[in-house]
């Protein structure tokens, strides 16, 4: 098996595992389908926006939950945004923790919120690493002359 075929296979397997493990859901496929020669970087662009957005929101959330008197509506608004953007790129596990987080906000449960925040940070960190790996593999494949059929 030549190098390119091997790389393609590895990429396929890696992508498949991300779906299997629930890191990504079908929305990620939808993004890939929107990418073409006229928009060859679409997925990376959208995912990068997600990273920026998520990091901003996680900062805001940390700050809001450190306050003496927590503004739950503000916290909820931020979680809502994060839930939306993770859903838009197919980051399923992040989205799921956001849902739980929102429930804790509604209950004004501080401990629950703090726990959720920790979980989100972990899930976000995981999916970010996974996606960065995925993009790197794609880049290497292209550099070797291969392609990903969309």
């Amino acid at each position, binding site marked *: 098996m030549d190098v390119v075929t091997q790389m*393609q296979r590895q990429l396929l397997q890696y992508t498949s*595992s991300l779906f299997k493990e629930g890191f990504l859901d079908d929305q990620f496929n*939808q993004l890939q389908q*929107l990418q073409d020669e006229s928009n060859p970087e*679409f997925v990376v662009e959208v995912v990068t926006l997600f990273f920026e957005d998520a990091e901003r929101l996680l900062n805001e959330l940390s700050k809001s939950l450190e306050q003496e008197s927590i503004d739950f509506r503000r916290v909820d608004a931020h979680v809502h945004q994060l839930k939306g953007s993770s859903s838009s790129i197919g980051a399923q596990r992040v989205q799921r923790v956001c849902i739980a987080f929102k429930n804790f906000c509604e209950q004004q449960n501080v401990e629950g919120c703090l726990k959720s925040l920790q979980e989100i940070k972990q899930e976000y960190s995981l999916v970010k690493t996974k996606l960065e790996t995925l993009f790197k593999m794609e880049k290497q494949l292209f550099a070797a002359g291969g392609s990903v059929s969309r």
Partner: protein
Amino acid sequence: MGMAATESQQFHVLAVDDSLIDRKLIERLLRTSSYQVTTVDSGTKALEFLGLRENHDGTPNTPSVSPNNHQEVEVNMVITDYCMPGMTGYDLLKKIKESSSLRNIPVVIMSSENVPSRISRCLEEGAEEFFLKPVRLSDLNRLKPHIMKRSKLKDEDQKQQVIPEKIENLLEVQKQHQPQEEAQPQPPLEQQQQNNNNSNKRKSMEQSLSPEPTDRTRPRYSGIATVV
């Protein structure tokens, strides 16, 4: 985005969403479907773009008819997020429908939350469609009939009749709901898009009945290699 002169044949959609990611997504979806797109991040900006501004007392003011009014570029449809700070998508919908100059423009509402009362309220207020986020290419197929209708009939009355029909359709679909639908294996792409069409509507009502949190988080692909 760009306010280039309207290409005469192209259908121009104004997309409104406060989320940058969602704006990017909807723009790509619409462009892929060959629509001309302008995106704005608020209802207020949408109204400005449409050439409608408010008076100081808050009542809408259609600009005096002059060749220099803001609506240089014709907008054929507005698609807007529901949850936005300040002016919600619903507020925007209302303002458009209350405006004599804008009310014929079809408005589509998008929302990440599946709330039946919200859906019916929007439809009753005159929204053409309600899309659950994240919006997909297959959802945009549902816009085609509205576009065809636009170009064929400008008759207000006929448009009004669509709305109660639509609510009936949604309720009909709810009755026919099959819980097993989710477990089926993935059909080929074209068929899948068809299914998406149907299952979107089904989903809207179906999830409102389930006791679980109303979110489309179920994975569709379970491990099938999908480097598409």
